[in-house]
């Protein structure tokens, strides 16, 4: 249940934001974070930003997810 994923914040309006990852955009509530700006990488859990990540760390994690996706896809195709 405690799943959370890194996403990039692409819009902010008060405490309502939109975050993007892998081509998917979702609304994200920003009430649980102090200061965020457009372009920040955030960890999203159940529609809320719960932590900020450095761009480098976020991209590393996203790359791992992509590799897992790729590995799963090739497993399915085998």
């Amino acid at each position: 249940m405690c799943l959370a994923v890194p996403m990039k914040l692409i819009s902010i309006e008060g405490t309502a934001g939109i975050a993007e990852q892998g081509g998917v955009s979702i609304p994200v509530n920003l009430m649980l974070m102090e200061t965020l700006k457009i372009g920040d990488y955030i960890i999203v859990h159940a529609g809320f930003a719960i932590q900020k990540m450095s761009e480098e760390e976020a991209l590393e994690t996203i790359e791992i997810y992509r590799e897992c996706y790729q590995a799963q896809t090739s497993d399915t195709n085998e």
Partner: protein
Amino acid sequence: MKFIGNVIKHKPPTPMNNTFHIKDLISGILERIREKSAGKTISLMEVCGTHTMAISSFGLRGLLPNNIRLISGPGCPVCVTPNSLIDRAVAIAKRDDCIVTTFGDMMRVPGSSMSLSEVRSLGGDVRIVYSTMDAIRSARDNPDKKVIFLGIGFETTAPTVAASILTAHLNGVRNYSVLCAHKVMPPTMEALVINKKIAIDGFICPGHVSTIIGSKPYLFLAEHYYKACVIAGFEPLDVCQSIEMLVNQIIIRKPAVEIQYTRAVKPEGNPSALKVLHTVFEPCDAEWRGIGVIPGSGLKIRDIYSTYDAEKVIPVTIEPLQEQEGCICGEILQGIKLPSECSLFKNLCTPERPIGACMVSSEGTCAAYYKYGV
């Protein structure tokens, strides 16, 4: 939620280029764990359902030397929610003036006589939401109904539920309330270490719970109970590295709290989220399925927000409590027994027809052992 599943543009994943490199790294870690731990039996417990699934799906138990024992603890919030809470939610869902909203994981968990999924099939209005903000939206869209959100989850989820109560309060949404069954991890870990039936040398501490609470709340486990603690991420390399860090602490007999998952966890956690959590909730004793009451292991809604407490504002008559006969979820949740030691496992209790909560939840220990064999 209109954006969910609405793919705006699709970027194909980049080609995999360093999986073997990761494989090499993991082999190296495993070899070092084998060398360092030789001749010593070490028991490590994970207390996060996502770790339970990760360990089983990677086949990590099979890769580690036999002297490293990985035990699954009560890390799945769905699994530890007692029947009494499900029964109350079912009774609320039977009322014509109520809409029960919940995360999808809770739908099939059996209560004394039925699950939320079953009450919905009988006409109850039960809706799955992705976020508490969806539940607030339901309340706004249905002003003539009472909308109840099922507040399940550990410290990762509790701030999002607290935020929904503050949002309802600030925006005058008076028909919204929360049936609160949130739990917190550190007092539960203490209950596990003082239980003589379980031998634990160290904890694979939960990643995203720690994103919120930081590393300090585990310090007493290292300082007072001499348990090694490492806050771990969820990828194969994360878990393997965390196990090596735990083994190092145990071998040199210097238990501490270390953060392996540094990309998501800061020592201080997320102070803003903690502030929201503590504004709305206060600690309470809580009942855990099959385990009983653990002092200080729950969260309840503060009196000042009692108009958002479903237990207080939605009166219902609850059916007599009945536990699932033969189910040993309680002992499995504490790591005392393995799923294979349950007479119902794979026999009468399967993911298609689950009897116990640990088989229902996708993060339950029984579901993990059923799916992956280990």
